[in-house]
């Protein structure tokens, strides 16, 4: 996660004026108006959100920008769940991004959105955060466990197909082990392998 200074490309000891200048430069570059009917428009919009967030953090002036407010009418999680059920994943993603409150449920729903998009690393991170914030919630634990299960299932299948785990066991390993076992046995008065 980048810090706001990195996002705006300013030093940690930058003045307010420098921060403002940097913000203006970046806002000019990534303003949505420059990306109308452009395949990069969604990426540019996300970048703009990031720049706005960074500027707000550094100036602690939350009134100086408006978030992508066309989606803020989806104010609650139930509506987001509905969007997910209808497979309207992009809208669900935008709705979650527009929310200010980022609690366990937010992370869980974001995890579901990420999972549907195939962004499994992010999905797992969100599920983990949701479970850590609300450890007794079964819905969140189930989602996280399901991902763990698919990973375990894969390594299990791989092992069944012959993937050598722990370096495998060669004939040399077996012979070595038998000789050692025989020596130990003889020290204790027995004899495992009579010809050695």
């Amino acid at each position, binding site marked *: *996660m*980048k810090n706001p200074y990195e996002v705006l490309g300013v030093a940690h000891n930058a003045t307010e004026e420098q921060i403002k200048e940097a913000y203006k430069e970046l806002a000019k570059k990534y303003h949505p108006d420059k990306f109308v009917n452009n*395949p*990069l428009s969604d*990426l*540019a919009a996300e*970048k703009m959100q990031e720049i706005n967030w960074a500027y707000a953090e550094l100036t602690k002036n939350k009134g100086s920008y408006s978030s992508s407010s066309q989606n803020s009418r989806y104010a609650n999680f139930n509506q987001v769940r509905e969007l997910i059920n209808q497979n309207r994943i992009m809208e669900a993603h935008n709705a979650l991004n527009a929310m200010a409150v980022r609690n366990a449920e937010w992370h869980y729903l974001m995890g579901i959105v*990420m999972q549907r*998009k*195939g*962004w*499994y*690393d*992010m999905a*797992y991170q969100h599920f983990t955060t949701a479970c850590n914030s609300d450890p007794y919630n079964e819905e969140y634990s189930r989602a996280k466990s399901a*991902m763990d299960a*698919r*990973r*375990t*299932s*894969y*390594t299990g*299948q*791989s092992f069944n*197909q*012959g*993937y050598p785990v722990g370096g495998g066991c060669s004939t040399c390993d077996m012979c070595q082990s038998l000789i050692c076992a025989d020596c130990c046995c003889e020290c204790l008065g027995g004899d495992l392998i009579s010809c050695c």
Partner: protein
Amino acid sequence: MFGYVNIYKDELKIKDYNTYRAYYCGLCKMLGKKHNQLVRLALNYDLTFLAVITDSLSNEPCDISRQGCLRKLGKRQTVKNAHGLEFAADMNVLLAYYKLKDDIRDSHSLKALVSVFPFWVRYLGIRKRHKKICDVTSTSLMRLSFLEDTECDIIDKAANEFAVILEAMFKEVNPVLEKFGYMLGRIIYIMDALDDMDEDYKKSRYNPAVLQYGYKGEFTEEIKSKMTDILYFSLGELSTEYENLDIKKNKAIIDNIIYLGLRAKCDIINERNNKK
């Protein structure tokens, strides 16, 4: 980008290995026949996999016969007339062309500049035959460029752009392969990014893994653990998609690649990085 999708030879039966090699030789022949002799140099196992899986969805037996080979001097078992080979040959040239363009743009490689011409001449025809895939590919590469310029530090986000390219390719083969193609593209990108972490960091080249993990030249336990996680989760999800497919032939080869080959490659990447 290339070289991650391959078999785990030790656990493949000889008859299956021979079939796999026959596809590889078949793809080489097809590149020469359909395109030109120079693009055969871009032959790789990743696109051989595309040919194998394309063919695997049909019950038609493989047409394998002995054909001459210039490189190995002699005759080798080669797959002929497989539907998958023509498409794989086109995609091989397409991806190699884009890779060379990328090298010219990013590292101003003279070698790439000299090599690109035979690919470019064939690209023009491929563009006509597979306009949708070419459009998706050029858009995705443009988006990847944007993410590079804006120093995107989310691996999933960058991987997505490469994944949609393979998604489009596999969808063209058969719509049932769409999601599988996406997962495969994703994992290839991630493996490539993780593999190049140290080198990209030292050469100040863009790498989303370096940014996401805050890599500063040392593979800490935390970073190593996260790398294993992302690789193995992606493998798990890929295999879930794979299990939904109805594979009619060459299943042993594909199983080997999915459950053993890819995993072995992931472990090599982890071990290589652990030694640094």
